[in-house]
C-alpha cells in the first residue's frame, strides 16, 4: 500500500496555499506556475447542479495547458480596465489526500471564497464548494495536473474574473 507521510501532506498544503495566494494577489502568472506544464493540465469551475445532472458546460473549462495560458491573457490583456476591481479571499481546508502513484496524489478540499468589490467595500461570501485535485511532482516540486472547483451555488453573484 502506498502511503502518505507528513512531508507529502505539508507539500500538498503548500501547493494549495500557493494557488490561493496567487489568486488573492491577482498574480495570474504565479497562479499558472502552480499548474503542471503538461499539455493536459486543466482547471475547471462548475456548479454542483451541472455536475450532478451530467452537464459539462462550466463557468471555466480550461481543459488543456494552452487554455490555462489563455486565461492569463484574458485577465491581463483582454479584460483589464473593463471590470470593477475586487479582492477575493480563499480559505481552503484539505479533506482527503491519497497517494495514487510514486509521484501523483489525489486530494479534495473544501473552500470558501469571500469577495470585496472595490466600489462598495462590503465583503460577502462569493461561494463555497470543493476542490478535486490531481497533483504531480515535477522537477522536485508539486504541481496541479488538474483542479476541478465545484461550487455549491446554483448561480454565481455578478461575474468573476479570477479563478476560484
Amino acid at each position, binding site marked *: 500500500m502506498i502511503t502518505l507521510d507528513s512531508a507529502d501532506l505539508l507539500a500538498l498544503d503548500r501547493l494549495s496555499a500557493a494557488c490561493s495566494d496567487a489568486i488573492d494577489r491577482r498574480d495570474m502568472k504565479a497562479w499558472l506556475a502552480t499548474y503542471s506544464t503538461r499539455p493536459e493540465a486543466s482547471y475547471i*469551475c462548475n*456548479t454542483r*447542479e*451541472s455536475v450532478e*445532472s451530467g*452537464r*459539462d*458546460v*462550466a*463557468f*471555466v*473549462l*480550461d*481543459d*488543456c495547458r*494552452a*487554455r490555462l*495560458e*489563455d486565461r492569463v*491573457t*484574458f485577465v491581463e*490583456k*483582454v*479584460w483589464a480596465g*473593463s*471590470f*470593477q476591481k475586487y479582492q477575493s479571499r480563499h480559505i481552503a481546508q484539505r479533506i482527503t489526500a491519497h497517494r495514487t502513484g510514486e509521484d501523483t496524489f489525489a486530494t479534495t478540499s473544501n473552500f470558501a471564497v469571500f469577495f470585496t468589490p472595490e*466600489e462598495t467595500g462590503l465583503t460577502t461570501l462569493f461561494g463555497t464548494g470543493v476542490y478535486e485535485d490531481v497533483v504531480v511532482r515535477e522537477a522536485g516540486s508539486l504541481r496541479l495536473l488538474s483542479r476541478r472547483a465545484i461550487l455549491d451555488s*446554483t*448561480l*454565481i*453573484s*455578478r*461575474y*468573476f*474574473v479570477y479563478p476560484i
Partner: protein
Amino acid sequence: MLNHGLNWPANYNAVPKEVFVREDVYALELERIFRGPEWHLLGHESEIPEPGDFKTIDLADVPLLFSRGSDGVVRVFYNSCSHRGTQLETAPSGNASRFQCPYHRWVFGNRGELIGCPQHEGFTPGFRREDYPLAQPRFELFGGLIFVSLSADAPALEAFLGDARQHLLESIGGGRPLQLLGYQKARYDCNWKAIIDNDGYHPALLHVALRMIGWAGGKGEFGIDPVRGHRLASSEIGAPQNNGFLADPSLVTTPGGEAAVRFSGVTLFPACTSAPHFGTTNLRFYIPRGVDRTDVHFAYFGFADDPPEVRQHRTRQVSNLLGPGGLISLEDAAMFHRVQIGSHTPGNATFQKGVRDPIALPTESAQNEEGGNAVFWEYYRKVLGFGRSRA
C-alpha cells in the same frame, strides 16, 4: 396618463435614469409587464426531453413548473400545491412521475392531475379530486420555445412575436432538433432593463477581445418590431483567422470548421434573448429579483444530431466564450452594474449612435447602432403609463 412623478423627456433618444432604480416603478413593471398582457420566454422543450422530465423557473416572483408528462406532452404549471399553495418542487430540474406536496401529502401526476389527498373522507361536501389539478398559466410553444403569460389579455403568441417569428426560428437552428448542453446562471446586481437595453454600438468598443483575435462582426440586416421594439439582427459571421493571440484558437472556431456561420439574434420585449454564437443556440432567460437584481440563465443547445466531437467543441466553446466569465461577455455584466450605480444620478440616459431624428420614433436601425432601442422604450413608456413631455 399618469406620470408618477416621473418626467419622461420629449426626445425619443432619452430615457430617465430613475426607471432603473425606483422601487415604485419596479412594482408597476411587475403588475403591468410581468403579470400583464405580455409573453415571456422561459424555456425550450429540449430542456425536458424525456417523459417525466421537469424544470422549475420563476417568472419574476411567480414560481413555475415545466413538466413533460408521461404522455410526452409539455405543460406549464404554477409550482404551487392546489390545496394550500405550498411550493411543490424545489429542484431546478429532474425526472418525476409524481410530485408530492410534503405539507399534507397531496400527490399530483406529471400531467398535473391530483392523484391522492389523504384523509379525504372529512373534506368539504362534494369535494372531487378532478377539481383540484395543478393550476396553469397561459403557455404556448413556438418552435419548441416555451412562452408563458400570466394574463388572459395577452394577444396570441404569434401576434405578439410579429415579424420576429422567422428570426426567432432561425436563431435556434431553423427547426433542427436541439439538445441541451447546459447552463450558466448568474445574479447580476442591476435592473433587468439595463441588460435588455444593451446595444449594437458597444461590442467593438467594449469587447477588446474581438479586436485582439481579429474577429470582425458581419455586416448584416437589422430590424425593429414597430409595436414592442423586438430587435432582430442577422448576418453572416466569419470565424477569425488564427493570429496567434490565443494559445488555443479552438475557442473561436466553428463547430464544423466552416469559414462562416449564419447569425440570427433576437431580443424580445420585455426580456428575452436568443443569441447564437458559432451556430450554438444560446437562450437567455431573465428573472427580475428586485429593482437592482436580475437572475440570468444562459441556456446552451447543440443539435440532437451533432457528432460527439461537435457536442464537445460546443461545450468547450460556450463555457469559456460566453456567460458571466466568458471572454466576450464578462464585460457586459460589469457594464450593467455600472449603469445601475450611475442611474442613481439625476437626468436622462441618451442614445446617440444611429439617431437620425430625436423627436421621431425610429423605424430602422443598423447592427452597430443603439438608436433602435427607442422603440422598446416607447412601448415600455406607454405600458407603464408615463406621459411624455412636449417637445
